[in-house]
């Protein structure tokens, strides 16, 4: 073993029953080095991280931390050897303040020490200041914005001064300026001589930060090198880019209905003090594909939930000329206005087939069979997974099932909220093809909410930009870059 290596992973393998999630993976990280571990959904990168942390036990292989094998140790022992994990999602203690949440991470793992040492308070305060939580130390987690919750995760993970820090999707859901602040914090680890492993979907998101990148696909290493080398690697390009997407927007005048089928007129929504949507007006024609683009928190989901009758609003929403306000969410869905929510809301313990059957519950049996057949052609992977419990599907498959289930309801307007969230590029391509097919072969209208502009634009006849609860721009996708990119970025 080389003495300058902090983490040395050799032959790491993990099988879940017949599935090999990680196969013979080897890599190493030096102190003060940031390694990016990237791969699309289902590539095994998260499993590899869990194996290092001791959340899962490896089937084979060694994990040397400073020369000591930690493979197979339970996670609390791995943590005490000096490994910290920054979780992407977690559940902080809601009744305790931010400061107390950080203090929890500093407590001894002992049943005999009932009260923390007094110096823990000072340490917790110092950590809070360091990660930028200084101003909100006395607040409770449910009142914090998303970025501060991520900071809290970071604070907890570094509380015990880990030698090796694992970070799961460091920048997911953060704005550009927040991403810069997080990058600075992570660079700080490098300067302190800690080893850092960043786990993420693609190279681009971590390229500015990493010293080296290791790309995984289907449990195996497919490339390793500098960010530029990995991005240029032909295997990586094939896995990530697939084929190119080309579609053309249809002009608004080509839609025959004079009154748009959906009219959202000056709609406002507020949650307590926070104004989530302010005087938004949009419309969708029969058969039109409309994209609403905007960053996290811009108000897209709120707009869709207002249309679906899930949140109370001021203003008016008309569907086929009739106001929707008096209808329940279920009644709205039965009129053909169906939402496929960001959170997917699948029935996790039911099979793919059962989920789809529930979507088609109101159709006559014959029509349901035909529709099911059509959807299984649209998403062939679902046919193979028909009998599988939906909870066990990969993220991309779950998204396809969510869309398919919504389509089983025979919608005339389908609202798709962030279908690409957290999905790998290969999956996006499948989704793109399905949307193209819907556009070419059915009279359905689609209202697509997206953060990912490169996915939203090719599928849109018309685009709205939502920015801080207001509609900031409207126009054809071709003019987006020239006129609206500045608003968006």
């Amino acid at each position, binding site marked *: 073993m080389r003495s300058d290596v902090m983490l040395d992973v050799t032959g790491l393998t993990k099988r879940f029953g017949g599935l090999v999630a990680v196969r013979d993976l080897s890599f190493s990280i030096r102190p003060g080095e940031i390694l990016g571990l990237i791969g699309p959904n289902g590539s095994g990168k998260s499993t590899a991280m869990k194996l290092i942390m001791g959340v899962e036990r490896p089937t084979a292989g060694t994990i040397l931390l400073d020369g000591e094998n930690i493979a197979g140790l339970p996670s*609390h022992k*791995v943590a005490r050897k000096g490994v910290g994990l920054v979780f992407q999602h977690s559940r902080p*203690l809601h009744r305790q303040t931010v400061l107390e949440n950080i203090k929890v991470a500093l*407590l*001894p*793992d002992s*049943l005999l020490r*009932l009260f923390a040492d007094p110096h823990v308070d000072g340490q917790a305060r110092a950590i809070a200041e360091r990660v930028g939580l200084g101003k909100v130390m006395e607040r409770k987690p449910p009142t914090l914005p998303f970025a501060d919750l991520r900071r809290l995760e970071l604070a907890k993970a570094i509380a015990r001064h880990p030698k090796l820090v694992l970070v799961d999707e460091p920048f997911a859901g953060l704005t550009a300026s927040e991403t810069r602040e997080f990058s600075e914090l992570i660079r700080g680890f490098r300067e302190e001589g800690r080893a850092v492993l960043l786990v993420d979907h693609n190279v681009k998101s971590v390229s500015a930060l990493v010293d080296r990148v290791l790309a995984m696909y289907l449990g195996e290493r497919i490339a390793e090198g500098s960010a530029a080398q990995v991005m240029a690697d032909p295997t990586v390009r094939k896995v990530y880019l697939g084929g190119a997407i080309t579609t053309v927007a249809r002009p608004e005048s080509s839609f025959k209905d004079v009154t748009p089928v959906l009219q959202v007129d000056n709609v406002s929504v507020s949650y307590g003090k926070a104004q989530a949507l302010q005087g938004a007006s949009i419309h969708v024609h029969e058969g039109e594909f409309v994209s609403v683009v905007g960053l996290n928190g811009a108000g897209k989901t709120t707009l869709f939930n207002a249309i679906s009758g899930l949140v109370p609003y001021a203003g008016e929403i008309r569907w086929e000329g009739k106001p929707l306000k008096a209808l329940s969410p279920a009644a709205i869905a039965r009129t053909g206005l169906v939402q496929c929510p960001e959170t997917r809301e699948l029935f996790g313990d039911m099979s793919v087939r059962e989920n789809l059957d529930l979507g088609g519950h109101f159709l006559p049996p014959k029509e349901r069979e035909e529709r099911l057949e059509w959807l299984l052609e649209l998403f062939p992977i679902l046919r193979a997974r028909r009998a599988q419990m939906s909870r066990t599907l990969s993220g991309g498959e779950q998204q396809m099932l969510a869309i398919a289930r919504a389509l089983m309801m025979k919608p005339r307007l389908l609202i798709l909220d962030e279908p690409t969230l957290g999905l790998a590029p290969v999956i996006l391509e499948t989704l793109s093809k399905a949307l193209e097919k819907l556009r070419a072969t059915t009279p359905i209208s689609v209202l697509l909410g997206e953060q990912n502009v490169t996915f939203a634009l090719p599928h849109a006849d018309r685009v709205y930009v939502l920015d801080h609860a207001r509609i900031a721009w409207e126009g054809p996708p071709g003019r987006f870059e020239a006129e609206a990119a500045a608003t968006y970025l």
Partner: protein
Amino acid sequence: MRSLFSTRLFWLTVAVLVGAAVLPQFASGYVLGLLTVAYFTAVFAMSWDLLFGFAGEVNFGPTFLIGLGAYTAGILDQQFSPGLSIWICIIAGALAAVIGGVVLALPALRVSGPYFGLTTLVAVLMLQNFVVVFADLTGGEIGLSVPDVITIDQKANYWIALGFMVVSGAILFGLSRSSIGLILQASGQDKVQAGALGFNVAKHKLAAFIVSAFFSGLAGALMVFYMGTASVGTFIDVSVGVQVIIAAVLGGRRTVLGAAIGAVFLIGMGEILRPLGELATPIVSVVALAVVLFFPNGFLGMLRGEARS
């Protein structure tokens, strides 16, 4: 800790307890008897809240632990009285419950959620069957009468129960506010993360089971020597366990103190409504259901909400 003494709730608790301590000067023996049972039930409920509210384990079988404590103490006394001091019987009851707690903890560390809940229910049913089958030893369905009681003085019994509740409550409350309470809460909410922060989740959960079992068993054993009898209907039956659970949820989950309030309320309500005969139980149940539905944080949640606004 200093902040504790400055809260209104703390001084309110002290005032109520002082009131409870001088109550025997004014109240009838009937009321005192009722409250004595209520105080023991309060300890059952507080012990349960440590497991559910903090460790995040839904134990449907509090009476498994209570019953082990009660019956172990009762049987020992019946077999060996007067050779064996009842205090030794009580300690033995508490220890038997601790062993039961460890047994209950083993499945909890392997399975979670509804599956663990089911194993606890089965534990209660097994204990109940055991009592019925070994009727020679346990008194079976008729019940076990113990030759000794702690005292026949109603006031003394009342003060013992009150003192026991206060001491147990203080220990359980202190534990819930200590480092261990925090680690337990973190483990209950997200055990993967608690592990990644360096905490041995299994060790802390096991400790919670042991403490919960100890107080449940101790309370059960003490109650046997107050009542002079032990029967399945008072110590083991699933409906007794449900009452303990309702008391804890009604008072306010994750508060420990709320569980005691809920227990006193439930027993008190049941008694006040007794003239209604068979109707009493459904009425109490409906009230409990309404509180749980509309105030999921229970009585203490209601109190706090008012204090805030």
